[in-house]
């Protein structure tokens, strides 16, 4: 990659008073109640919490896939829908969501096609992204020929193809095994440090959140809300030995305490 990646414009994310309810039978369930959060431009935030705490709903609201019942989400001062049309968002899900009939290269080109941008001119860029996620030589492979980890790398390359100012990731490594997950964490850090997009990562893994994020946001359920925010002081680039450092474990225990209750504020 050339140095221009680091100069990309980034946006901050401003979430204020977001509420989202779902009807389960005759009962109203608060997936999110009055959630406010600010993510500075170029920051890396991890959302962690039990199933049903609304962290995915929050992420989908930022991506413009859900409309909150109350409150607002602004990305760099614009609504998610406005940002979507500019290709300013890159979203990765737990599943790679690749189109099975397209090759790796064609899958990465999909966002450009949806945005009606020139794909022929983006060929070099796509190949550079494939190189970036370590899939050189697999440009023309189809998803069925790739392993789970490789498919997830394709999905990450796809999120980067529009030079997004905001990266949203919903448990992108949730379906991978622990070993693969570690190596993907390290790669994600490398990619993020090259692009410096404002990033929001939803995860179930405390270690993953700690290793990657500047801040870890702990959420609780019923109603879905932010319970605590922990700043992560470790210097970058972070390397694998950090996973076994005592201060890492101390923070892990602290977040676990917030997660399992008792120490909530």
């Amino acid at each position, binding site marked *: 990659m050339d140095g221009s990646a680091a100069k990309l414009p980034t946006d901050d994310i401003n979430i204020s008073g977001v509420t989202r309810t779902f009807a*389960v*039978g005759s009962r109203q369930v608060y997936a999110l109640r009055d959630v406010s959060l600010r993510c500075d431009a170029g920051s890396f935030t991890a959302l962690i919490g039990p199933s049903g705490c609304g962290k995915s709903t929050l992420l*989908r609201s930022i*991506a*413009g*896939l859900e409309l909150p019942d109350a409150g607002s989400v602004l990305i760099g001062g614009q609504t998610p*829908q406005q940002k*979507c*049309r*500019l*290709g300013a*968002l*890159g*979203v990765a*899900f737990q*599943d*790679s*969501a*690749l*189109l*099975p*009939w397209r090759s790796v290269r064609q899958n990465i080109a*999909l*966002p450009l*096609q*949806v*945005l009606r941008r020139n794909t022929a001119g983006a060929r070099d860029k796509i190949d550079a992204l494939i190189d970036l996620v370590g899939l050189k030589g697999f440009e023309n492979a*189809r*998803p*069925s020929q*790739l392993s*789970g980890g490789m*498919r997830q790398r394709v999905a990450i390359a*796809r999120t980067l193809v*529009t030079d997004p100012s905001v990266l949203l990731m919903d448990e992108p490594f949730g*379906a991978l095994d622990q070993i693969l997950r570690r190596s993907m964490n390290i790669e994600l850090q490398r990619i993020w440090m090259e692009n410096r997009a404002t990033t929001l990562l939803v995860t179930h893994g405390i270690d993953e959140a700690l290793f990657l994020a500047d801040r870890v946001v702990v959420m609780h359920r019923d109603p879905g809300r932010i319970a605590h925010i922990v700043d992560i002081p470790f210097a970058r680039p972070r390397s694998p030995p950090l996973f076994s450092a005592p201060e890492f474990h101390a923070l892990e225990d602290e977040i676990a305490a917030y997660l399992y209750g008792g120490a909530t504020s």
Partner: protein
Amino acid sequence: MKALLRLAILLALWEGLGDFHLIAQGALPSPSAIIMQWWQDRAVYPPHIWATLQPALLGFIIGNCIAVAAAFAFALLPTFEGLMRGFNIAIFGIPPIALAPVLVITLPGDWPQIVLASVSVYFPTMVMTLLGLRDIDPRPIDVIRCYGGGEFAVLRWLRVRSCVPGLLGGLRVAAPAAILGAILAEFGSGARWGLGSFLLGSLGRGNPARIWGIGLTATLMAALAYGLCALLGRRFSASMAAVTIAGGKTISKTAKTAASRVSHLLLALSALAIPFLIWWGILKGFGVSPVIAKTPLAVWQYLFSAPDAAESRAAILQALKESLPLAGIGLVIALSVALLLAVMGMIWRALTAMLMPAALILQTMPLVALTPMIVLLFGRGITATLVVTVIVTFFPAFITIAQGLATVPKASLDLLDVYGASRSQKLLMVSLPTSLPYLCAAARLVAPASLLGVMIAEWLATGYGLGNLLNTARGELDYGMIWAVAFVAVAVSVGFYQLVKLLEDQVLRRYSAASSAA
């Protein structure tokens, strides 16, 4: 090699049975006799084949174009699909043989064959294309929406490509159906050429070898059409399956308000009215003489207010009394045998391996071609009718049920294995409940076919029931009766379908995991 040897033994056995007139006094001619007769008739076959193939091909093209256009319209406008529901079910339920005489008296030239072929291909192609357009992986939709893509972008980048395997699967089913439709429309069309006319003309001649020759030729044509489309499908649908399986879909349940109930009722009523409007519109649009072409109102008058309405009603009721029980019994027998064989196939894998290819080929067999052979073998009684009905319904039912049994998740079976479950326990506890939706679908899909089977046998052989009534009315140029019987046959068929669907909904509501609350 083994398969070839088996085939050789079978052929030798058949040859022996045929040569010595062992079955039904020579009703089963030997293969050599059939081939010799075929060779003698070699000069007349090409024009007959061409006369059938040409309208079948044209109908195949027209019908499929309409079907694909309709599928796209339904996918984009769900309300439109709701409106056309009655029309779709009517097209699915129409026994082609009931429509044939109506088309023959209304349309000129080759058009009856072309239209019946189109009608026969519409439903399978439309349904499978729509399924492909609609039943898409929800995850890439999110990706497209993240880049501001709307409904059109989802259609363009996702749905169009996703529907291809379904579309090709539909074409595969439609190809033999087009040939069957074209042949059926030749019945009573007075056309000189065509395999249907050839078959009808040969029925009374006491030449079983020729009838078998025509039947086998038609079967071969249908099988070739099926094979050609299957080949096309295999080329295009490689690498289509999603790599991972999408998580459980959330079924949005909207509360029924009073307003939505009213619009629901309006929609249902319109859906019911539209087939009649189309029927009326086509007749008016083409300006067919009202003496020949009966509008819905004219059929109503014929049945209820004309001077001899009571007589007509009595004739139709009598015919229904003869036909319906046979269709019902045939359906039950076919489903039971299909279920039994599919279950046995689970225990002895070799059985499925042997039956499946045969079933796939035989379900494409043009029924008309088959009927005379069955009549030759079983006589002109109830047995022949039942055999025809069971054969038409058995193969598609068997294929559907066997597919259902094959979808049973391996983990569930492994779980029972851990506790040392026997085969019958696994069958009762896991396999049968899991494949219940497929069993229901099989029943629903073949219900109209059972009435078609009964009517064809009655028309060609037995001399009673709805099929016979239709044939007689055609002979006597009793136009009112032709339209009335056609209408009643369609109505009964649709009613049969809806009845089975109602049962299916009940069963699935009780046993299906999908409908239970999350």
